[in-house]
């Protein structure tokens, strides 16, 4: 533990914390997208919708070996810890960098590689704000007009029938994928991977994964607005 703290004290260690927590959150984002696509699975009208059944599965998985909700809360705690570490390290790093240049340039010409890298901080804030709204919307139902616990598919369709809600969702998912584009590329450098063969695929890999995720997330509200999911 002392060694981990020594690592965390350096700026590189904080970057490592960001990379590792970011990787955990990326894993969640992929799993969540795959789960969402269950909304497109055909439903014969008998029994719960496949998306509802999947939600039920998440609540009960492992039962009776572990209590109901056990694994779900386990995951939630890991995710919450990852979000916490990611934000705390980001704020500490941002403060370090902000105080490193008290007086800026009169004439600024940006030489950075990508738009994504310049928008990491504000993009992260947008994503964090969206996550809070999203939990109130679809998990607790506080921000949902006709929330019914357990009826995930109905909640989703009714929620996205409001074009404003769907629009905000698309903007937030876009911000998330831009954030991931720079994040996925950065992880390799931060974690010290330097292999010419890996280097060649870093950019394309980050692009394919982030665009793939954007498409995977965006199709759901778009399908609701287009009347495909009812």
């Amino acid at each position: 533990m002392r060694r981990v703290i020594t690592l965390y004290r350096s700026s590189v260690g904080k970057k490592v914390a960001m990379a590792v927590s970011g990787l955990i959150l990326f894993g969640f984002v992929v799993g969540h997208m795959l789960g969402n696509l269950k909304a497109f699975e055909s439903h014969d009208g008998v029994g719960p919708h496949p998306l509802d059944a999947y939600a039920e599965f998440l609540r009960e998985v492992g039962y009776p070996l572990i209590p109901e909700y056990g694994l779900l809360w386990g995951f939630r705690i890991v995710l919450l810890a990852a979000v916490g570490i990611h934000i705390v390290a980001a704020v500490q790093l941002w403060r370090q960098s902000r105080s490193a240049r008290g007086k800026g340039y009169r004439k600024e010409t940006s030489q950075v590689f990508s738009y994504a890298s310049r928008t990491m901080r504000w993009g992260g804030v947008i994503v964090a704000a969206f996550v809070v709204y999203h939990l109130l919307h679809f998990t607790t139902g506080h921000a949902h007009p006709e929330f019914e616990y357990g009826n995930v598919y109905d909640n989703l369709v009714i929620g996205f029938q409001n074009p404003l809600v769907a629009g905000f969702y698309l903007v937030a998912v876009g911000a998330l994928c831009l954030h991931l584009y720079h994040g996925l590329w950065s992880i390799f450098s931060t974690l010290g991977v330097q292999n010419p063969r890996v280097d060649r695929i870093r950019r394309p890999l980050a692009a394919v994964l982030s665009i793939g995720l954007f498409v995977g997330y965006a199709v759901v509200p778009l399908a609701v607005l287009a009347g495909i999911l009812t």
Partner: protein
Amino acid sequence: MKLTLHVWRQSGPRDEGRFETHRMDDVSPSMSFLDLLDMVNETITLEGGEPIAFEHDCREGICGSCGMMVNGVAHGPDDLITACQLHMRSFEDGDEIWIEPWRADAFPVMKDLVVDRSAFDRIVEAGGYISVRTGSAPDAHAVPVPKPDADRAFDAAACIGCGACVAACPNASAMLFTAAKAAHLSYLPQGQTERLERAMGMVATHDEEGFGNCTNHGACQVACPKGISVDYIARLNRDLMKATLTGVGMEGSGGD
């Protein structure tokens, strides 16, 4: 060529500083950028003013002293050169040029365009060396070095410590400098003994000096007059992780 120059003037470290505008009429496209500043200084001196202070030494791109921001770009608009190698043919007649010192709190402005880069020296002192017995030089082939490693070490050793990486970095981070100074040793057999302590010491000093941290923008690599790659930063990160997680840093230099 006719040019309008806005030059940062600051009489000393405590002065607030301001831009001073100079209109130059007879600028030759074959002049170097420092020739232009010399020309401006001649005019200022003839008028009884204080000439613009700027650092320069070799005027051939190897000493690393002539760094300045030209229109917001470290060492000016051309790639892979220092300000002394920049020529006025890279500008258009009638251009306005903003000339500023490197901006980073770890590089305090001493006067006009001159900054104090001794924070770099302290990063090198914290590990950018190898401990060997001195004496007569060993035979060149006594320690075999694979060619690819020698090339990578040499590419890193091309760093002239000019500070353009810090100046260009949106975070004012000196990770490219630090990584290059660590890598030119860590690719060679002689650099292995103190490799992990070196990473610990140099990164700790980098942070203490008040530089920002690396967010992988890559602006440093674009700004570097020697084209040093950000890949070296990944190597330094790995060495630092290894050093802390294996406990090397506990008793070594620069630990906690």
